[in-house]
């Protein structure tokens, strides 16, 4: 199968958006307000933290905020020298920082970051463990969620993919499970 025909190619997977298990988006944003708009999305790898952060951005925009994205990961674990100073200097009173991968910062760097971010209207971070900011939402996964995502990607068709075994093999990491499905489809034809 050609990569561009593979139903689990990256652009198709990225089209799948975050599914709130409980409550509503408005309820989540109200909770964010109640936390002083400084909060964390917490959950294991491949559980949708980044997707949720992305999906919050347009909803925050609709409430009059300007989302400002920051991202660190294992490939880029720190900011370039001076980048954060420039970022903080550019912050406006309606800016709301969405910081994916905040736990890449050590505690000292985090402490400096947290202080510098106070000029903004808010700060939402993602991380694998709670503790740096009050938890807004803890993301989690299940075999049923994986099955639902697969059905969405395949447009309702759900062939025998042994979803539960796939889920367990990847320890609940949906991103890795979907990558394996890419490989399976690539090899099958």
């Amino acid at each position, binding site marked *: 199968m*050609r*990569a*561009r025909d*593979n139903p689990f*190619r*990256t*652009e198709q997977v990225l089209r799948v958006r975050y599914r709130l298990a409980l409550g509503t988006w408005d309820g989540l944003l109200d909770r964010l307000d109640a936390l002083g708009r400084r909060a964390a999305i917490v959950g294991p790898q491949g559980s949708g933290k980044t997707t949720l952060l992305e999906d919050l951005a347009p909803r925050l925009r609709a409430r009059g905020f300007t989302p400002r994205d920051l991202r660190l990961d294992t490939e880029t674990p720190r900011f370039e020298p001076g980048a954060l100073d420039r970022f903080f200097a550019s912050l406006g009173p309606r800016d709301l920082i969405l910081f994916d991968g905040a736990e890449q910062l050590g505690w000292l760097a985090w402490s400096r970051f947290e202080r510098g971010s106070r000029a903004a209207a808010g700060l939402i971070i993602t991380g694998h463990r709670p503790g740096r900011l009050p938890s807004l939402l803890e993301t989690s996964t299940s075999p049923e969620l994986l099955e639902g995502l697969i059905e969405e990607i395949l447009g309702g068709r759900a062939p025998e993919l042994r979803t539960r075994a796939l889920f367990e093999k990847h320890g609940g990491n949906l991103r890795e499970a979907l990558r394996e499905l*890419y490989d399976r489809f690539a*090899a099958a034809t």
Partner: protein
Amino acid sequence: MSRMHLELADGKTKYLPGETIEGVAFWELATTPEFLEVRLYWRTQGKGTVDLEIVRNLKFTQVGLQDRRPFRLEVPAAPYSVSGKLISIVWGVELVSEPEGEAANIDVVISPTGEEVRLDRTPAK
């Protein structure tokens, strides 16, 4: 409701490097755009990060809600349209209205043979 449309000359969608893509861009928009742009670009599809590069662009300024403009874009030498199991490089011509970001797209093939290069097939012996 907005409508945007691209038509390539003679309905052609396969090009050799160095050829020229000719066509007409049509639009009927709900709000007056700042400008529209026709772009020739390639993108990757597959398992990894999506890469994208705009190789040629042609900007239409002082445009109305409803209009049509011809365009010509020179096809570059590389990369070719290619597909394997892990990655495809897909070329496209896109019409975009700014700042709304509404778009129309036609995928095209660019290669020395006029056909997508296939890496997922064993060559005939």
